[in-house]
């Protein structure tokens, strides 16, 4: 008998423990893109230390994030690719950029250092299309005089998993090459005509590091941390640009945020002078008429704090913070568009 009551007690206390965890769960929940996860984790940690407010961000992927915010199971969603203005309107959502990422082509060629190899947009597209097969191709050597390029087959490396990085990269290729946009198009995953696929940024980085005569594309942070050989890309104004925080930031600052419906700004192949051509913003998505106004306000307070105080930790993690002129536009839009009972949720 004593044994039975012991089991019953154990079972009860176990149930109690579960419900205690459930009640203590964080008040604010977000879910979505994996690329900005380290940054959001750092921000929520810092913010929690200052305000005691607990935010919980789950990096389940952009697709999942969009689904969850539409279903209203989270307080904010996150996506690497912007939703279209139409899609936002239909679901009563608004989006704003939280950080800029630069996608950089990286190569592994014996004896070639970072920044030495230059590529034009059409050459990059044709390498990935499989039309340019060797590093010694005349179209590559013509723009790279003085660089010794081997007479070896190029192996393009791509992301095997669906990702915002691929979205940005293929979006760029579609803009600069008609052939690419006809044959392949752009998306988080595409039908690659050539090459091998690595899982995640780290997978692509490893393949490029291990296999000779490869070219791949990764988020800037991974290129820096893995000491990969980056290249210079020809920008829209035909000058060659090196990937750097500054050239990504230029792309973000130069974009026409104010007049783009839904802020679905795409930062590839922008007109800004000196801008890195393969950049993109990662977005936060919220409801315009939130069901839980208290949480919605807490979410906006947090992102306001992140815009104003999060730049340093963003740079430390190799993310590019949103320039001030851009986040001013966003905060104005919050004030105008996000409402509870007709009243703005955020302070002006």
């Amino acid at each position, binding site marked *: 008998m004593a044994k039975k009551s012991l089991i019953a007690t154990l079972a009860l206390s176990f149930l109690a423990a579960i419900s205690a965890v459930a009640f203590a769960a964080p008040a604010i929940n977000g879910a979505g893109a994996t690329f900005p996860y380290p940054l959001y984790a750092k921000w929520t940690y810092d913010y929690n230390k200052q305000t005691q407010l607990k935010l919980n961000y789950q990096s389940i992927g*952009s697709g*999942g994030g969009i689904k969850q915010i539409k279903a209203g199971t989270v307080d904010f969603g996150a996506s690497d690719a912007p939703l279209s203005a139409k899609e936002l309107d239909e679901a009563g959502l608004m989006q704003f950029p939280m950080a800029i990422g630069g996608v950089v082509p990286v190569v592994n060629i014996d004896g070639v250092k970072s920044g030495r190899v230059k590529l034009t947009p059409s050459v990059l597209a044709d390498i990935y299309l499989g039309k340019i097969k060797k590093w010694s191709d005349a179209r590559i050597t013509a723009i790279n005089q003085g660089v010794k390029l081997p007479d070896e087959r190029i192996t393009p490396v791509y992301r095997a998993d*669906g990702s915002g990085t691929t979205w940005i990269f293929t979006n760029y290729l579609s803009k600069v090459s008609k052939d690419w946009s006809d044959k392949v198009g752009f*998306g988080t995953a*595409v*039908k690659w005509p050539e*090459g091998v696929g690595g899982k995640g940024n780290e997978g692509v980085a490893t393949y490029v590091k*291990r296999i000779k005569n490869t070219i791949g594309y990764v988020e800037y942070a991974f290129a820096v941390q893995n000491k990969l050989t980056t290249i210079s890309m020809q920008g829209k104004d035909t000058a060659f640009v090196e990937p750097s925080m500054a050239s990504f930031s230029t792309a973000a600052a130069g974009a026409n945020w104010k007049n783009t419906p839904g802020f679905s700004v795409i930062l590839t192949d922008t007109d800004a002078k000196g801008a890195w051509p393969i950049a993109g913003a990662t977005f936060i998505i919220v409801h315009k008429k939130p069901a839980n106004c208290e949480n919605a306000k807490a979410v906006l307070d947090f992102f306001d704090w992140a815009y104003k105080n999060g730049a340093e930790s963003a740079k430390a993690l190799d993310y590019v913070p949103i320039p001030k002129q851009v986040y001013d536009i966003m905060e104005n839009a919050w004030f105008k568009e996000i409402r509870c009972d007709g009243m703005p949720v955020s302070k002006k």
Partner: protein
Amino acid sequence: MMRILDRHKRDRFADFLFKGVSSFFALLIIVLMLFLFVVLAIESAPAIKAFGFKFIYSTDWNPVRASFGALPAIYGTIVLSAIAIVIAVPVSIGIAVFLTEMAPKKIRGPVGAAIELLASIPSIIYGMWGLFVFAPFLSAYVEPFLIENFGFLPLFRGTPLGIGMLPAGFILAIMIIPFISSVIRDVFLMVPPMLKESGYGMGATKFEVIWNIVIPFARSGIMGAVILGLGRALGETMAVTFMIGNSHDLSISLLDPATSISATLANEFTEAVDDIYLSGLVELGLILFAITFVVLALSKLMTMRFAPQKGRGKA
């Protein structure tokens, strides 16, 4: 007297309860499997409706144009498992023979334990080891050798990347060898010593005893071990994703990058935004479910056919 009767009643009730609970858990497994199947079927219905049988024989996997054909993934899954089994089975039998018939008693224990330890290593560790250590080795030595000497076969053409169908098959073989060999070892240990001693008594060599007595006696057990390995190989995900190169291009060359069903699912599930894309991925899962089911059913049939051999061996 009364007390004994009471106790009897209580015991019967306890037995009844025990039977109820255990059959409930057993039934739960069946119900769970049915649910799994039903959910997969419902979720993949849009893709089945949209693509029909084309899904199985089309090689076009294009998320941008929302056109999905699973042949490269199905082909990859089957060929990959076949490579792994072809490499792993002879090696495993060799290991088991050594451990049960030849190795000195002193090293049987440690080597056996080492093999069991290998079986408990998480697959991602194999994947990382494969990518960082094994792939560079393959691309520097093994694959150039294959291309040079066997390049006349379409199976061994291409660039020596160290990543592709064959490298993934190698890793998979290494991963399933511990499973297969430890089961085969246990089966070999069950061969009655009398049979072997009779063989030796008639002047048979060690090889003859192993080949004519031990292996035939253990045949159905070996089949069981192979199926266990095959089951693991079909569903293995992480290590394969690291090594296979994840390309939906169907290529006959084993050196080219390919893909498998489980690798495709692991790669593409998180960022599949469109409903039809997601549904296509679920249909892939359904197909893997079906393949595994057929393989297991076939193997049960085969084990049953082999079983009488064992009986005859005994007599």
